[in-house]
């Protein structure tokens, strides 16, 4: 069956009333997650996984994917209206978006952001349809050494870009790999680092670890200080002028392309795309000095890039089983929980599911465009819930989410422990994105490494004797070295870390 026919089949599944409902619920919940400051897309998606436990696999993935890209849309609303980014990718939108709001042009900023997001997301999904099947076929020829090298490249990119200190990013990457060791050894089935706890035989529960690192730790950091409720700007007319559309057209085009290509690279996060788009627009503008004062280009470009990135980032997941960001890692975990292994075999073994999810991305993008603008008033009301109530509700949901995965109180202890660890790591300026990725990829990396060494009877040369793995590893080393050189003078920059995800 051709790819176009497969896509049509995907549409026929995604357009069923049940799956439309799942996509709709996912879009709404994702937008709420994006709107709420303090709940990032990674923790938010993990938080809502339990809601999908008893859904059919296709419905569950459609809903979780909708939560993921819905959060990308929603993050913009708080950035523009309140100067508070709902998620990391929207930080840069605060610069000009909020300035526009202060000038009474909040509605225009939100309209252009939604239109740009729609175009970026839809074009990237088209790219996904075209690029993913041949990439998956190519990946079928990859052996363990190539997979190991590809994962090493993805991680090196993430760590190289993760913060000011490459040492801290690498340390976090290693910590994630170590956390992935807990449980059964992937080759011999021998328990490791389980401390005699039967609950740890299957490894640390990833939902609890991710929610602890990204959800609970954020709440602990926020409650340290008295949180004051922010007053948002009023939403004016949503209709952009002809000049606004003209000014936004090229930034949207450039943002779409930039976000798409950066999204293809494992390790690149959406925030990098939006920051790069902003920098590009500023450089290409006739009035770079006016950026930061309410230029529509500063909203259109980054918002488009962010959403184009979000959809394109699904390509490495679908074709090679490699998550490019913590949120995609959570999505990958959801695939695995539903008995599906993301990677080249997904297109071959589950074409109905994968094409239905791809089709749902188109539908979800249309839904978000239609829903978001008229519902802006409702999202603003969500923001009026005082944080002193909100933090308790979020914590309650993390507890419910963590418990319901295995029905085990042990996972609640894991959640608390990793919440506290995440809090301490953030205090020490360690970037957390590398931990999330290496934690998910750790067992796969170990398996690929050990299988490679079994193939070569223990010779490490297998990684350099095969051209693809050799090329990928050289690239990984170059990226790490260039990042290390950037921080070589042993000064403050090198000692502090911080997350590029913010």
């Amino acid at each position, binding site marked *: 069956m051709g790819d176009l026919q497969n896509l049509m089949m995907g549409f026929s599944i995604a357009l069923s009333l049940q799956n439309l409902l799942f996509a709709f619920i996912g879009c709404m919940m994702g937008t709420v997650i994006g709107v709420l400051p303090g709940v990032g897309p990674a923790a938010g998606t993990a938080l809502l996984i*339990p*809601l999908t*436990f*008893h859904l059919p696999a296709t419905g569950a993935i459609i809903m979780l994917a909708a939560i993921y890209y819905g959060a990308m849309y929603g993050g913009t609303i708080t950035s523009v209206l309140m100067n508070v980014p709902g998620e990391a990718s929207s930080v840069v939108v605060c610069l000009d978006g909020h300035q526009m709001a202060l000038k009474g042009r909040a509605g225009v900023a939100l309209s252009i952001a939604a239109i740009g997001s729609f175009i970026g997301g839809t074009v990237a999904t088209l790219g996904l349809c075209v690029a993913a099947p041949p990439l998956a076929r190519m990946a079928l020829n990859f052996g363990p050494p190539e997979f190991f090298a590809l994962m090493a490249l993805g991680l090196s990119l993430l760590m190289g870009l993760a913060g000011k*200190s490459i*040492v*801290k990013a*690498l*340390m976090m990457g*290693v*910590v994630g*790999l*170590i956390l992935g*060791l807990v449980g059964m*050894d992937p*080759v*011999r089935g*021998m328990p*490791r*680092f389980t401390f005699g706890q039967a609950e740890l035989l299957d490894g640390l529960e990833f939902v609890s670890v991710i929610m602890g690192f990204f959800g*609970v730790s954020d*709440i*602990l950091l926020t*409650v*340290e*200080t008295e949180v004051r409720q922010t007053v948002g700007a009023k939403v004016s007319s949503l209709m952009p002028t002809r000049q606004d559309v003209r000014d936004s057209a090229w930034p949207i085009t450039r943002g779409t392309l930039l976000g798409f290509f950066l999204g293809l690279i494992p390790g690149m996060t959406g925030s990098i795309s939006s920051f790069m788009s902003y920098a590009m627009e500023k450089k290409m503008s006739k009035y770079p000095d006016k950026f930061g004062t309410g230029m529509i280009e500063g909203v259109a470009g980054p918002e488009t890039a962010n959403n184009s990135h979000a959809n394109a980032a699904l390509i490495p997941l679908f074709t090679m089983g490699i998550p490019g960001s913590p949120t995609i890692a959570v999505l990958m975990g959801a695939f695995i929980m539903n008995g599906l292994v993301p990677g080249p075999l997904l297109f071959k073994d589950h074409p109905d599911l994968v094409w239905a999810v791809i089709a749902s991305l188109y539908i979800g993008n249309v839904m978000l465009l239609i829903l978001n603008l008229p519902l802006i008033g409702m999202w603003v009301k969500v923001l009026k819930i*005082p944080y*002193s*109530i909100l*933090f*308790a*509700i979020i*914590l*309650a949901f993390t*507890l*419910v989410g963590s*418990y*319901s995965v295995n*029905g085990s*109180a042990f996972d*609640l*202890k894991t*959640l*608390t422990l990793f*919440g506290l660890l995440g809090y301490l790591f953030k*205090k*020490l300026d360690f970037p957390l994105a590398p931990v999330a990725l290496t934690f998910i990829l750790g067992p796969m990396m*170990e398996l690929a*490494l*050990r299988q490679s*060494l*079994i193939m070569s*009877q*223990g010779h490490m040369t297998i990684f350099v004797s095969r051209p693809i793995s050799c090329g990928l590893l050289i690239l990984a080393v170059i990226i790490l070295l260039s990042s290390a050189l950037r921080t070589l003078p*042993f*000064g*403050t920059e*090198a*000692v*502090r870390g911080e997350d590029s995800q913010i």
Partner: protein
Amino acid sequence: MRHSPERSFGCEEDDFMKRVYQIASFFFLAFSAYLVFESRQMEYYADLGPGPGFFPFWLGITLAALSTIWLVQASIGSPQAIEDDFIPGRRGALRVLSIVVMMVLFAWVVDFLGFQLSMLIFLGFLLIVLGRRGPMVTAAVAIVGSFGVYYVFTRWLDVNLPASSIEFLRNLGL
């Protein structure tokens, strides 16, 4: 919020951050030593190739090397300003501690008291003591968050949440 590098700080404050980073790197070094030690108890190499101890051993060595580099960077690097928000105020620290304690307590009692009662207490405490909300708001949020969530998850979403292991409470539907 961080101090700008231009702001001057006393030598003691500069040393404080250095000391914090040094202590943290020692923790990482101790953890790597534990990892290497444990991995040596496992098979490092077998006929088929690397054994279960192979990966943890090299991860331990790598973490130790990175921690050492960080320790050196922290020790010989330029002094750093102590961050405004690094040490929470007394009330802030109490709030953080209260949440952690409440989460641990919840984990401890949830199978015993059941989800509904445990969550009612959890939310009630957080909203009254930390959130300083009035009794009406607290009651509404705590009841919806405990009984409401239990109903929705168990009846509609088919997700199992624990009932109390105490017969009397279980008979009351808790």
